[in-house]
């Protein structure tokens, strides 16, 4: 039987997300409403495969696979998809599956296409500390929430544009209502900020005990991302940041959060004593 590596499963998962995106694009071009159930099944299949791929990687690195850029991107995309599977079923927002499949296909395919991101696999990166592993997993999961928030923000801007410019047919006719997008965006902002706050709280316990081992770049980057989202959340709650400006803010903040992953990752590697490195297996 063919030996399927974790990357093989993750490639197949990326292909599923890409199929979802292509199917959605065809439906949009034909100006017909795409079956939400079909999209849900395609994304669920991708999610199952990706979960299995990440599980295999987790076994290989003996922990949550968050040891390099490839794993961080994969885990963030996985988190966004996991959330979509809950949010998509509960809120039934049309086109959210389409946009999520685009994001997941792009993030997973990009991470697989850059060999340097997965050149070194680090075993036991959390040194057996379950709390730190939990802290990192929750932090990355909140990035997945922010990814979905960026998508609903893009959808909000498109819906707002269509209403302001009276362009309501074709692709625009499938977008959810302004109020639905506002509601879901606020909830995602609340959940994401809350999760990141929880992650920082868990991490803080470790940091306070081991202040000398905490990298300043990592600390500043993570706290800045959380603080920026927290400010956006409080301004939204106070009715001072809303509509288009809130949507743009969420998109810009997500891009900043993504950009912060690289320095956080490299600073962490610089800090680590010498975690065991596993040479990558031959990849498909």
């Amino acid at each position, binding site marked *: 039987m063919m030996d399927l590596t974790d990357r093989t499963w993750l490639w197949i998962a990326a292909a599923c997300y890409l199929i979802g995106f292509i199917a959605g694009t065809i439906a949009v071009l034909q100006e017909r409403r795409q079956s939400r159930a079909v999209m849900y099944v395609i994304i669920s299949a991708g999610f199952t495969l990706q979960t299995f791929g990440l599980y295999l990687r987790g076994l290989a690195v003996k922990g949550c696979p968050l040891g390099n850029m490839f794993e961080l991107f994969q885990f963030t995309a996985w988190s966004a998809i996991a959330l979509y599977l809950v949010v998509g079923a509960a809120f039934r927002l049309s086109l959210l599956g389409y946009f999520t499949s685009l994001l997941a296909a792009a993030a997973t395919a990009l991470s697989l296409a850059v060999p340097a991101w997965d050149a070194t696999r680090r075993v036991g990166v959390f040194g057996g500390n379950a709390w730190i592993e939990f802290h990192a997993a929750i932090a990355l999961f909140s990035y997945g929430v922010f990814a979905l928030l960026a998508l609903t923000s893009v959808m909000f801007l498109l819906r707002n544009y269509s209403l302001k410019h009276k362009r309501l047919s074709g692709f625009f006719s499938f977008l959810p*209502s302004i109020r639905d997008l506002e509601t879901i965006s606020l909830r995602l902002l609340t959940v994401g900020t809350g999760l990141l706050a929880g992650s920082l709280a868990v991490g803080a316990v470790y940091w306070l005990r081991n202040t000398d081992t905490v990298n300043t770049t990592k600390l500043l980057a993570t706290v800045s991302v959380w603080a920026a989202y927290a400010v956006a959340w409080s301004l939204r709650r106070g*009715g001072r940041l809303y509509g288009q400006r809130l949507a743009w803010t969420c998109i810009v903040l997500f891009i900043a959060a993504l950009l912060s992953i690289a320095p956080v990752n490299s600073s962490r590697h610089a800090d680590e004593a010498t975690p065991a490195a596993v040479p990558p297996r031959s990849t498909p």
Partner: protein
Amino acid sequence: MKLFVVGANHHTTPLEWREKLAIAPADLPGLRERFAGLPGMRELLVLNTCNRVELYGVAETETAIDSLAVAYCESQGITTADFAGIRHEALDAEAVRHLVTVASGLDSQMLGENEIFGQVKEAYAAAQAAGTAGPVLNRVFQKAFQSAKYVRTHTAINEGQVSTANVAVELALTIFGDLRNARVLAVGAGEIGEKTIRAFQSRGAHHLTVSSRTLNRAMELASQLGANALPFEHLAAQLSEYDIIAAATSAPGAVITVDMVRQAMRARPAAPLFLIDLALPRDIDPTAAGLDNVYLYNLDDLAMIAEENRLARVAEVEKAEAIIAERTATVWHGLTARGLG
């Protein structure tokens, strides 16, 4: 044995004639029974709407169909010569095709409208209850309903609204998603304001308010609609209370200024406001469209969307007609295989 439809509809009949041809609801049961009892008439159904009076039935001979037409003319007080000029008649497979076309909304004055489907169903139910629909009409109408549903779900013939009031409601749905909690204000208690507010009411809005320069008129309309009345002088102060504002007054200038809207939005910055200007000259300052979270549509905007939707429906006609032709052939083949009786 002949399956037939005979009558007149909006294609050939001007409004003043359709008024004469329409059967008064109170007279319908008696006339249906009388027509069904004519010699040679096996089955009969009367479809009586504002745009058509059509008698569907099964007759032993074509002479019986002519006798029915004469009886109908007598009942409406028109001459057979006058009726001959506007008479529409179809037999057998063509009658089936016409029925499916009508039930699908393809033959309606407002292409693709859904109301006709319900009207055909009501006419069929009434004929069944009166015992004038027999095995042939039962089969033809059941199959016609299935075919019409198929046409509506497999084409875009009924997609997009084509009346101004319904376009406004559709737009409100793209902003609010659900109208149950939306607060709707009609400024102006005239016919357009009334139609618009009724359209919102029919789609689930129930927080309705009417404001007019004449408070009595506003209160009168409000009581008809089960709505509230707002004194016109309180309009500026209470504008922020509403999510949807439809203005249709005969005022010579703007009754809702950009400053009023700006002021209202300060009280509800994060909540979208949908402004519908149905007046000429315009009631709402057009610069209000530039404010965040404010969506302003005027008569031209609504008419343009309605026309786009209408054209989109027209583009679906060919596809719908192909489905109808195929379905008609199947239904007619099934009928002739069983025999018309």
